[in-house]
């Protein structure tokens, strides 16, 4: 039995997780020694980290705004549904009342 093709399939390379390289760079920045803090690498990493923070903040704010808008839309839908239900119940109530008064005559 030739299992080598099965081994090659089972052991083929897998892609690294998304943003893997960014996480490595972030760890380098954190672990950088004081002597390297004024180096071009450190400056570049600080700028990249700041840009990443701004981008993350903007993305979170956008998500928050989307959630608020979605909640408002759901609130409007519920209000409309309650209004329709209330009108239907009023109509049923009126018909029941009419039916009762007819039977009493």
């Amino acid at each position: 039995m030739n299992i080598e093709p099965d081994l090659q399939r089972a052991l083929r390379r897998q892609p690294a997780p998304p943003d893997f390289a960014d996480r490595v760079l972030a760890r380098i920045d954190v672990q950088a020694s004081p002597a390297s803090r004024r180096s071009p690498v450190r400056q570049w990493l600080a700028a990249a980290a700041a840009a990443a923070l701004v981008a993350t903040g903007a993305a979170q704010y956008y998500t928050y705004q989307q959630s608020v808008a979605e909640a408002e839309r759901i609130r409007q839908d519920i209000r409309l549904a309650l209004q329709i239900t209330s009108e239907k119940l009023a109509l049923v109530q009126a018909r029941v009342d009419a039916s009762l008064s007819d039977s009493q005559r």
Partner: protein
Amino acid sequence: MDRDDTLARARGGDAAAFASLVRQHQSMVFSLALHMLRSRPAAEDLAQEVFLELYRSLPRLESGAHATSWLRKVTGHRCIDEIRRRQHRPEFQVEEMPERGIFPVAREVFLADRVQRLLAGLPARARMVVVLRFQEELEPAEIAETLDMPVNTVKSHLRRSLAVLRAKLMPQGPQV
């Protein structure tokens, strides 16, 4: 920009070049760790540590090819150490895996998983030899160089590991 140039720029403090170096090799390093440790979080942690060590070792690396072989070597040794430290064992027995009466695509998925579980039962160094042989398609002499072991030991690991895997993967009876 070729790999030697990327390495030279990374050595000179160019962070973008170092990021490029990481991206060029991240799949190799991550996959070696994943096939050895069988855990994505553990593989990512180990791969990150390897690249941090690469960053500290940049001044000693002479070429792109040297960086590649250095990464294989460090990843291999770290994986073996990690397995020995944790005494990794398969989570459950391979006999529990479905084998017969399944569609071909599903069979391939199950087979890959089964092979990986069987590999997890091999000793750490033998497992690393098999992973380097079939993931990286290295020759025994290259594996010997990577793992600092004699070529004959590599060949012996390969021969015995393949015999074990073949025996366990051999169909037990007629397929349904």
